[in-house]
């Protein structure tokens, strides 16, 4: 899923000044699961803003709502009136949801309340960890299911750098060296010989370097 964290409160508070009616719009999918922008977080943010407004004597009406997904058009139908009615929307969706809301409601100011982080997994209650960089050309088959692009700090494809110490990364001792993990996994799978193969220079144009991505499924289009 896409993970995110809430922006610092003072940054959010600064960006919403001047609006008389604000809609805080949550997203019920990824950011609900990572506890950053779902219905509950919308409630906490709305209450915090109201308390700050009471203290600062700011006159602002705050509406709250959460839709299933802000990255799909149909879910906005339920809140379109509220969006039109509000002076601005403070979205607790990921960057995709914020942009899509802004695209659908031209002329409406849509403000992000979150910083979108990465594609990750939920390791434990309250702990998320990056697993995929969305490079557009998956190499997991070659590395025992551990991604050197997302999990090696330098995205190295032909073994570790000199900064790998005791299975940890030189960037941060809290980070596991992806290449140590790959080595251990390939050994376990009895596939160490596969690591002898030289991995050619990666074509990054399938990911970010190729510009904004687009998928068109002709068999699905109407």
């Amino acid at each position, binding site marked *: 899923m896409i993970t995110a964290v809430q922006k610092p409160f003072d940054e959010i508070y600064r960006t919403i000044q001047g609006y008389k009616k604000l809609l805080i719009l949550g997203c019920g999918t990824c950011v609900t699961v990572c506890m950053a922008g779902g219905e509950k977080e919308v409630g*906490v943010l709305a*209450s*915090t*803003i109201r*308390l*700050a407004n009471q203290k600062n004597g700011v006159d602002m009406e705050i509406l709250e709502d959460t839709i299933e997904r802000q990255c799909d058009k149909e879910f906005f139908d339920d809140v379109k009136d509220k969006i039109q009615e509000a002076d601005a929307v403070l979205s607790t969706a990921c960057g995709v949801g914020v942009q899509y809301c802004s695209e659908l409601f031209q002329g409406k100011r849509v403000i992000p309340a979150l910083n979108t982080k990465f594609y990750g997994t939920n390791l434990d209650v309250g702990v998320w960890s990056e697993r995929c960089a969305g490079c557009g050309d998956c190499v997991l088959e070659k590395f025992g299911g551990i991604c050197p692009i997302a999990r090696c700090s330098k995205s190295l494809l032909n073994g570790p750098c000199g900064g790998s110490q005791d299975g940890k990364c030189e960037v941060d001792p809290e980070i596991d060296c992806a290449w140590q993990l790959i080595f251990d996994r390939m050994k376990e799978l009895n596939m160490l010989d596969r690591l002898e193969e030289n991995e050619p220079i990666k074509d990054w144009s399938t990911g970010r370097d190729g510009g904004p991505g687009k998928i068109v499924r002709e068999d699905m289009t109407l």
Partner: protein
Amino acid sequence: MEKKIALYCCENSAYKAAACLTGPELQKGIEIIKLPCTGKMEINLILKTLEQGYAGVLVAGCPIDNCKYIRGSSRAEKRIEKTRELLKAAGIPEQRVRMEFLSSVDSHKLAGAIKEMKQELEGVMS
């Protein structure tokens, strides 16, 4: 009218201690709400309580290592801490939210915490 402190009590400990609070000075300005466990306490609920005009929220639960539901008090403690951080970031006195750990016989400790919180709130809310 004087603003009240909402006293959220675990029914296994603090609620029984609160029942023994005597003296108008202690009972005045307090509204007691019973919880099955302080682990039920959510950040949303604390902020909503403040939003509704309460001067402060005092959450009172079992000692950390003696929670009937094992982790309730420690979970509540983390949520109270997070709420205090949110308040501080929003420029609101964090003293408006507080947690106490006590057993059912600790009425004196609860009375002390209420008195102390009232004094703190007088200082920060004036």
